């Protein structure tokens, strides 16, 4: 690796954002977290440490439903923590799953949340239980390091297992990549596992200030784009030739996060910039990370993602600098084809004589409810299942590598606990994704997870009216424009503005390679239904054979296509 033309970024107290100060002063992510955890007077930790714990996979939140009542009662907000585990490729063994679910029962709000980035999340963990929960996660040999924060986060990989050998190979690369880009500070062990204090002298890849902003990586195996590879800072598309993995196309500069009414910010789909063989994967990834470390904007955080770095430099300049970091250049990209970014539900048998069952998990929330004892059911399944559980990028769960001997038992547990594998829900519901939003997310401006099912029911009534119930339409909803559920890649996207009010976006592609665009701003439920009704009617009457809704609204001129992120606002 050539370092001749590289100048590593230095902290500048005058111009850099405050988060940069916190990072540089943190003694490699330690801060005062240890003291804050044992302060018995508050359920929170101090502001600076709230930035740092993200690097440890933790967010401080509070129950926003209760905030006002508690203020009047002279109680502080009900602070609790969200913990996110790093699960490369979304794969956890049955034994690991059992422990993780038991931790949820014991220390969180009794549910496990699957995320759009194939991670497990625990919500509502109180400060006094934080350490034991993290230690419990660690006991499974999973961890929470770098699940959030200004570092490379959980590395995604396509989980649909049509070809189990290729999946296994790609999953191993996802794991290696995740390990390779982990921060090396010993802070995690010291704080959470009572490890001995070991002086950290350097972060070989990141340096003292880590990255300017979060960094997301995913690997897709065509034809499935269930990881939404175009929404990542760094993406790899596995290129398969004659049933063999020959390498990866490299993508850079994807990202969803925006701010309302700020046209400097925009979502962006990644550019395909070349191809590398598997043995070069880590080197390419590390070089992109180093480049972003040095060229990313450290003054204005909302313009710090790689997508803005690339648009500032221009893609050609970016590629040239990357070649400097690599000391060589990427080969030309290979051809590939995606057919969608959703999940394929139900049973599937693979060439290794194992079965896989993709479940529909509404909004990724594993919880017992009057409709389904999903949480208990999955625990019972984990008891007998010898394979893995795989989280998909759509917040669903695959019970994977089921032996023929246990298939029958698992099948009966599924029906006994009322667990869905997508057999009864409409395609529009099966293709919907919502973020967590209220009451725990501090960023939420409107409901998402708690509201989308109701809205879908109302949308289904209209679709039924036009005989469209069998048509999959990809709907994404988030409570804010930061984009956790990748709303700008929904054929129909809803982004919260205020309680009960959403921006309506239309025109993304079904396979996840084209963004949508703002159609109506700040509208309520009735207005949403009134806007969609005539579009569905027209779609039912005028669509071409096999034409997806997102393509239709563009062809008919309801909305202009977004070719690249800079068109998003125009």
């Amino acid at each position: 690796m050539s370092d001749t033309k590289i100048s590593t970024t230095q902290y500048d107290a005058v111009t850099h954002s405050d988060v940069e100060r916190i990072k540089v002063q943190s003694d490699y992510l330690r801060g005062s977290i240890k003291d804050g955890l044992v302060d018995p007077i508050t359920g929170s930790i101090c502001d600076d440490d709230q930035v740092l714990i993200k690097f440890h996979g933790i967010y401080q939140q509070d129950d926003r439903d209760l905030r006002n009542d508690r203020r009047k009662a002279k109680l502080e907000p009900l602070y609790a923590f969200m913990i996110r585990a790093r699960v490369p490729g979304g794969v956890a063994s049955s034994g690991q799953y059992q422990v993780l679910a038991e931790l949820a029962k014991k220390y969180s709000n009794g549910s496990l949340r699957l995320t759009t980035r194939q991670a497990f999340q625990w919500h509502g963990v109180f400060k006094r239980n934080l350490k034991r929960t993290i230690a419990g996660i660690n006991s499974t040999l999973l961890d929470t390091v770098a699940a959030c924060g200004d570092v490379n986060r959980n590395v995604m990989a396509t989980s649909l297992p049509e070809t189990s050998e290729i999946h296994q190979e790609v999953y191993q690369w996802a794991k290696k990549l995740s390990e390779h880009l982990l921060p090396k500070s010993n802070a995690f062990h010291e704080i959470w596992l009572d490890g001995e204090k070991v002086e950290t002298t350097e972060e070989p890849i990141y340096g003292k200030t880590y990255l300017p902003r979060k960094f997301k990586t995913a690997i897709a195996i065509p034809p499935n784009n269930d990881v939404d590879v175009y929404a990542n800072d760094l993406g790899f598309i596995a290129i398969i030739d004659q049933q063999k993995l020959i390498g990866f196309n490299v993508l850079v500069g994807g990202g969803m996060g925006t701010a309302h009414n700020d046209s400097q910010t925009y979502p962006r789909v990644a550019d395909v910039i070349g191809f590398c063989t598997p043995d070069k994967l880590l080197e390419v990834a590390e070089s992109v990370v180093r480049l972003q470390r040095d060229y990313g904007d450290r003054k204005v955080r909302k313009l710090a993602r790689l997508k803005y770095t690339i648009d500032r430099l221009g893609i050609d300049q970016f590629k040239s600098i990357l070649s400097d970091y690599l000391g060589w250049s990427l080969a030309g990209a290979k051809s590939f084809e995606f057919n969608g970014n959703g999940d394929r539900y139900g049973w599937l048998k693979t060439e290794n004589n194992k079965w896989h069952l993709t479940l529909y998990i509404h909004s990724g929330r594993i919880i017992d409810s009057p409709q389904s004892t999903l949480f208990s059911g999955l625990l019972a399944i984990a008891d007998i299942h010898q394979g893995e559980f795989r989280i998909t990028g759509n917040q669903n769960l695959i019970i994977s590598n089921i032996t023929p001997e246990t298939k029958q038992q698992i099948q009966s547990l599924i029906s006994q606990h009322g667990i869905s594998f997508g057999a009864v829900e409409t395609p529009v519901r099966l293709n919907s994704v919502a973020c967590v939003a209220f009451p725990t997310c501090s960023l939420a401006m409107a409901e998402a997870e708690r509201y989308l099912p109701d809205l879908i029911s109302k949308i289904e009534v209209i679709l039924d009216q036009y005989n469209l119930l069998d048509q999959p339409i990809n709907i994404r909803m988030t409570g804010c424009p930061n984009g956790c559920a990748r709303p700008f890649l929904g054929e129909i996207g809803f982004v919260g503005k205020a309680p009960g009010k959403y921006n309506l976006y239309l025109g993304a592609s079904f396979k996840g390679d084209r963004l949508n665009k703002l159609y109506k701003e700040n509208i309520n439920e009735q207005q949403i239904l009134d806007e969609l009704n005539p579009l569905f009617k027209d779609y039912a009457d005028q669509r071409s054979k096999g034409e997806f809704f997102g393509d239709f609204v563009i062809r008919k001129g309801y909305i202009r296509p977004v070719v690249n992120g800079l068109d998003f606002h125009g």
Partner: protein
Amino acid sequence: MKEQNPLQRATARFTNIDGELLQQVSNLGPSELLLLAGYCAGLAEHSPAQLNAVVTPSAVNELSKGSQLRALILYASQTGNAQEIAESLQQSLESKGYKTNLESTLDIKLARLKDYALIVVIASTHGEGEPPDDAIDFYEAVLSKKAPSLNGVKHAVLGLGDSSYEFFCQTAKDFDSALLKLGSVPLIERLDCDVDYQQEALNWTTQLVGAIADIQPPTLTTAALVENIIQFPYSKEKPFAATLSIIQKLTAPGSIKDTYHLEIDLASSGLSYGPGDALGIWADNDKALVKEILAELNIESQARVRFKDEEFSIEELLRKKLEITLLNKGLIEALATLGGSQKLLEITETYYSDYIRNHQLIDVLKLANVTLEAQQLVAMLKPLKPRLYSISSSIDENPEEVHITLNHLQDENEDGIRYGLASHFLTRQLEEGDKVNVYVDRNKNFKLPSSDKAIIMVGPGTGIAPFRSFLQQREAEQAKGRNWLFFGNPNFNTDFLYQTELQKHLKSGLLTQIDVAFSRDQEQKIYVQDRLRENAAQVWQWLEQGAFFYVCGDMSRMAKEVELALLQIIEQQGNNTQSQAKEYLKQLKKQARYQRDVY
């Protein structure tokens, strides 16, 4: 700002009292002050000309003369009521020229008893017949073999107690019989006063002063005007109808506690209070409960009855004047006999104290199965008493307001839920804006020390109330003394009373330290006494540096455990023996450095 003395602070709002006058007043001696106070009190009600006739120069001279009779007035006080009566008795005797010594049972040496011709004991009883904290040592001593002979001595005993407890005025009874046994003879008969003691106690002291005059005539008769020096406009008997301005629940949903913060508007009442004082609340009985009782007895709600020479409907009388939530043994026995209820008799004999914890009159009536006339019922019941709550505000921080902190009390029994009188009235029957009858009940034995002294406050649950007041007061006075609070409750998330205020106090430095014990947040229960032990070295250091130690809250468990922890700290940290530790604690009490407000 220059620090003001209490008088200056108190008079600051009256612009026509100038500094010079105050300076002169503060230079006066005790007997001059007493006379002046009496004079002023008289002035408030009479013209100066009328008063001149009474206050003659010779009267002033007589005051300091004294007589031959040496009297000891000994008080064993828990909340300060016995002390108050003792002090007013002393004033009354001294104004007549008798020489008296006023002593707490904490300070008196057993051997000195025989130095007096007359021993007056005013003793309260608390809990299940137990003497007050300050009297335990003396109590044991006077009943022991070491007690001196008291032949030739006369004594008089006044008891304060609560007849709803089984061992009513037990401490006074025990003192009385101990003195008899030692050879003393009673000057007047012992009187056992119930909670409503003021008038009876006054009558008794008047009787006592008369009896003393019979054996030894007073040297002065004209200075009666010094009695009743300070007249508050509102009192227990004449409460102020205040506006309940805020009812705020403090515990969050999911809590096993139901705790409230109440703010009461005292505007235009002239009522004032200090940190440590209590607020007396006159509550009405629950309408539904009254109806249930009348239905059970088949008594017409409008039936006319007489009570203290006035006529009422039975319904109104039960709601406003009679005790129907607290039981007493006499009542249960009377109803048991009347209805021939074996079950009730068994209760009084076997598990009376368990029974009365969660049962009320209505439950007894259901078991008694009696027929009563309305007037008969009235005769059986005790008068309704006000309920006292430790004040949780400082008037300097909240002018013309008083705050209290209380648990809504409810207990379930086999027939339903029984509610506490005042807490149910305040939080369920009243709404913000309604009137409530209140008065200030002073607690002399729970007071802040001077502003430079360090204090340690142990107040779990609603025991935090007076300490919120302490902290507000110290903030208002910019007091320099260090403040350390121990607080506990079941759960951190729901039960951290006044959490955000305490966080602010900690941040501002007003609170030097706070230690919390949330008993149910972990498998092993943790209480304030455990936190005290964890901080043993530092607690000891504070005590050695002169800190004052306060405890407020539950008596039967918490306060006992805290005292044990404190003794252990004194023993271990100070390398003391057990008895040295006890002596150390006794000295703390003597110096008013160990004060408790427990219930």
